[in-house]
């Protein structure tokens, strides 16, 4: 063991790595698969299954880079930015969970601005997005100004 904590990885990076590895193994053909590879197969399958349900499946290296640049002004720690990236929080309550002592460090406007940045740069589930927009449009029609 040299360094047990060399770097934090985002779900997106692990997602990319496992997807590439899966493709590589598929391309190299089945004859190389010895029984010893069963553990690798199992863990890859289960981990990919889990991460594929998270927002990282809609991300790309450019999106991650844009997100980190946008986060620069907000004075968050690496771990906090990582959680926002992995979870794509949509509510103030979620932000408060992921940012330590958020009541002291962030005002309500700052939390709103964080939510704005997160939802505008990080893509969500396209189907859910359409649904949300439809509900929001319906609500606007309900209360006439």
């Amino acid at each position, binding site marked *: *063991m*040299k*360094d*047990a*904590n*060399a*770097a*934090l*990885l*985002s*779900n997106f*990076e*692990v997602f990319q*790595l*496992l997807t590439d*590895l899966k493709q590589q193994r598929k391309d190299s053909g089945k004859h*190389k698969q*010895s029984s*010893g*590879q069963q*553990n*690798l197969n*199992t*863990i*890859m399958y*289960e*981990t990919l*299954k*889990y991460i594929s349900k*998270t927002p990282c499946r809609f991300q790309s290296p450019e999106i991650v880079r844009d997100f980190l640049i946008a986060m620069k002004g907000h004075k968050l720690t690496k*771990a906090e930015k990582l*959680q926002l990236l*992995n*979870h794509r929080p949509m*509510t103030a*309550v*979620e932000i*408060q*969970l*992921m940012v*330590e002592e958020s009541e002291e460090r962030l005002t309500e406007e700052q939390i709103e601005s964080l939510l704005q940045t997160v939802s505008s740069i990080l893509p969500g589930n396209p189907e859910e997005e359409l649904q949300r927009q439809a*509900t929001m449009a319906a609500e606007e029609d309900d209360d006439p100004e």
Partner: protein
Amino acid sequence: MFVLVEMMDTVRIPPWQFEMKLNDSIAEELNKKLANKVVYNVGLCICLYDITKLEDSYIFPGDGASHTKVHFRYVVFHPFLDEILIGEIKGCSQDGVHVSLGFFDDIVIPPESLQQPAKFDEAEQVWVWEYETEEGAHDLYMDTGEEIRFRIVDESFVDTSPTGPSSTEASTSGATEEVQKKEAPYTLVGSISEPGLGLLSWWTNS
């Protein structure tokens, strides 16, 4: 929840694999050794990230295989303290709520870290949050299969390497009982006692 861990190990490549590219056979051996295994005080190893340095390969007398010292980085599941994770409820017991991530099962949320007040429903074997509003108490059940958001509050590593032969008197009867407790090498303790934590369905507005 994933970290990159720098490791170093000596990899043994048997002669029948010499036709493979060295990097490929080393990658295969490392994955065979570490994938889906827990390394004490490090975490659950997922897969090889890259090989950073290969030292010279040696063949020792008496063994036709080559031995190579390898420096590499491995992707490991090791959530940090206070990290927020989302998992699935696997079941409930007196010990608390058991949560799984699919690739990692040993997560437990003890009764004291549930949203209070909570009670254990013996008949259904499920924990229940007795949520109070002005209208009265609502019973929110923590059913199996539900998605749950929780915070990591503790972790514990248990060294499960085999101990040497014990010096206690061996029983003379034929069948010696194997008193081996199956302990999970790596367990996580979670908590949901904050606003926003618990079943996802408790906090969605729609």
